[in-house]
């Protein structure tokens, strides 16, 4: 799955880092009819976790209420330099990951 994760390369110690994430995903509702009159199976990103050096930042449960190509923006205060890891999983079991390295100065 294609995604874009935007985080600052450097932040000052004690200050929050702005994180923005966009994932290319149809967030299929399970009601849309295809050309051959079958119905597209429901397929949404169900869980997403963001961790920084194994510390939990954000754990999301979501579903059909989130728009297609989910966008998330949040902030967190990195205690030290390290890597922000984001993982998600959809109904079909497909997983995706994105990462960004943040250096604390």
């Amino acid at each position, binding site marked *: 799955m294609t995604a874009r994760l935007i985080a600052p390369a450097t932040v000052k110690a004690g200050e929050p880092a702005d994180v923005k994430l966009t994932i290319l995903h149809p967030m299929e509702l399970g009601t849309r009819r295809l050309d051959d009159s079958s119905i597209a199976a429901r397929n949404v990103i169900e869980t997403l976790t963001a961790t*920084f050096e194994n510390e939990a930042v954000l754990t999301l449960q979501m579903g059909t209420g*989130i*728009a297609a190509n989910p966008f998330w*923006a949040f902030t967190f205060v990195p205690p030290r330099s390290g890597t922000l890891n984001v993982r998600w999983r959809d109904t079909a079991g497909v997983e995706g990951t994105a990462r960004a390295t943040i250096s604390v100065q």
Partner: protein
Amino acid sequence: MQKPAAQNGHFSRRIALKICAVGLFGSAASKSFALPVTLSAGQRAALGNIVSGNVTFDAAVSLIVEPLAETGNAIPVRVSSPLEIARWILVAEKNPRPIVFDASVGPLAARSPISTRIRLAATQNVLALGQSRSGTWHAAQANVALTASACYDGT
């Protein structure tokens, strides 16, 4: 012309005009309101056992969302709080699956505002619930009017 209420967003002229068009409600409609409100039956049903104890509607939780949207397919929302929040829940009671998201927030992000884009099936109140680190629930709610819904079903 009134100034749009949301401070964070980059309100386009179109959105500013929409807010003016709402007129009677003015800019207050784009933010959570501070009236003494309680959870509706639909919201209680959607939440089930997730939320226990009293829910306080107060300034501890702020929900920013457009008061009027052309379609329900992608409506920007933002929740924030001056308190340290451990969990956020967003409820759209008239959606087929009313819990829009349920977010557990780690200590590193305790004061983080959270923004995303949601789908709405109908004109309705959107409810944001934030649980502080001490366990108490705070809420804010805002009405979003749609001119067309997200294509949730045949309606």
